[in-house]
């Protein structure tokens, strides 16, 4: 295991410290916790937005804390949902009396820990709403099972719900727009290499030199199936076709695109993937409003990418374009 770390036990603590040190005007750490909140939290008159999950997805989630996006991010251990007490601290720190929306990625652990925190917060008189992001089309969308995972599409939920909240909308309105994004966003990922959870010290799975995993999440787990190594074009096509099966788009409709790097895939390769994505969308007459290419929701040092499409209407377009200023998302 070759990593720039001090010790496997310390990675989350050190990372949060290094992050706050880098962005002191944007972020602060709630003392004694793994919670990062906006430097100016709680923002009065505004619904608070809290997200989080296991660590190892940087810049998610603390990189999206700031004006126009999240108010707090709760960092669990690597790939391990944060505990209810930590989420509760985040909720309390960002509530200004207008209620708090929890943006949860659909994993059993995240859902249970955030739910328990919500129960505790409500017991303390704070209004809490929850949305659960499940954008990964690689897995079956079934109510009998865990259902779909939340992956990179979550960042669009942060952005859009954050924009509406910063305009002073109510908790119900912010929850509704978050739900709308969730209904209209789909993603799928693949990996060329596994990653190593620092405390485990060994890769989550083994891949041959000529193999790749298709349809995997962001926790170093294996994918839905293994494939021969594909070209960038074949890879993009495979992921995009599956997404479009699930989110039928007619010619003339508009989307936002995210080509997300999983941690070790450089910008060059992501742009090569985007070339095909943009060509395939153009072929189908689907208009691309904006494209985001980079490491937005990673899986430690995994090599690979995911593709996300968000179907836009006027409201979502306007909120996506609204200003935001965070460590990892900056637009004016």
């Amino acid at each position: 295991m070759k990593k720039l770390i001090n010790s496997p036990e310390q990675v989350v603590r050190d990372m949060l410290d290094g992050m706050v040190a880098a962005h002191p005007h944007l972020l602060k750490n709630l003392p004694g916790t793994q919670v990062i909140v906006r430097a100016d939290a709680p923002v009065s008159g505004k619904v608070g937005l809290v997200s989080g999950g296991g660590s190892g997805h940087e810049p998610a989630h603390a990189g999206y804390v700031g004006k126009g996006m999240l108010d707090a991010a709760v960092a669990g251990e690597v790939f391990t949902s944060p505990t209810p007490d930590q989420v509760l601290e985040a909720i309390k720190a960002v509530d200004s009396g207008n209620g708090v929306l929890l943006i949860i990625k659909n994993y059993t652990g995240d859902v249970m820990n955030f739910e328990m925190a919500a129960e505790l917060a409500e017991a303390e008189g704070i209004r809490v709403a929850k949305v659960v992001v499940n954008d990964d089309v690689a897995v079956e969308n079934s109510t009998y099972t865990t259902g779909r995972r939340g992956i990179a599409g979550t960042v669009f939920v942060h952005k859009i719900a954050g924009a509406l909240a910063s305009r002073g909308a109510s908790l119900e309105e912010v929850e509704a727009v978050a739900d709308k994004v969730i209904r209209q966003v789909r993603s799928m990922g693949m990996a060329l290499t596994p990653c190593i959870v620092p405390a485990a010290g060994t890769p989550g799975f083994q891949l041959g030199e000529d193999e790749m995993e298709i349809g995997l999440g962001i926790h170093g787990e294996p994918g839905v199936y293994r494939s021969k190594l594909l070209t960038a074009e074949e890879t993009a096509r495979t992921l995009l076709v599956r997404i479009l099966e699930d989110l039928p788009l007619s010619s003339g409709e508009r989307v936002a695109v995210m080509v997300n790097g999983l941690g070790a895939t450089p910008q060059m390769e992501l742009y090569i993937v985007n070339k095909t994505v943009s060509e395939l969308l153009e072929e189908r007459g689907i208009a691309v409003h904006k494209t985001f290419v980079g490491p937005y929701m990673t899986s430690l040092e995994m090599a690979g990418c995911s593709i996300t499409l968000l179907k836009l209407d006027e409201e979502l377009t306007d909120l996506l374009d609204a200003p935001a200023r965070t460590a990892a998302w900056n637009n004016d």
Partner: protein
Amino acid sequence: MITLKQMETWMIETHRILQEKKDYLTQLDQAIGDGDHGINLVRGFKEVVGNLSAQSSPDIGTLLRNVAMTLLSKVGGASGPLYGTAFLKMSTALKEKVEASPEEFARALAEAADGIQMRGKAQVGDKTMLDVWKPVADLAVKQGSRLSWKDLLECSRQHMETTRDRAAKKGRAAYLGERAVGHLDPGAVSTCYLFEALVKTLTREEATG
């Protein structure tokens, strides 16, 4: 009767086994999950054991409640709320008891299993820890005052084994579909260790005490 002291020893023994099996649990979770199950539980039970000396409990209910709160705030992931809920339910069932009869303990196990089911919304057969908790609790309730620890351990091991040949419906393994078949569920295995520790504690003390 099961004593407060035995309950404490149970936690120490659980921590010892988990520590010993940490890498194995990691491997099981790497195969069908995200590789942190052993790490999560060891982090939690280490804290539980550390707290035992710090905060001495007047009764079993208090002890198990402390265990629950520690697990809830230290484990995280799916197993944190699930084990936390299980111990919270047991603590309520054994509230203010300084010792417990086998029937009382069996009822506590049943409450714990129901708590896991309520919290995780899984069914038996979904390839989760519930696949061990539920049959073990059912057996304990059925045997009541004639509760055999040997039977309980046997039952726990057998049901852990049943998770191997199933596709998962809940937890991370569910994402793998058929690829999960052939692998034991890590939470079912750790549950089995919890019961091994229990049986080892109770039978050893019976023998010596």
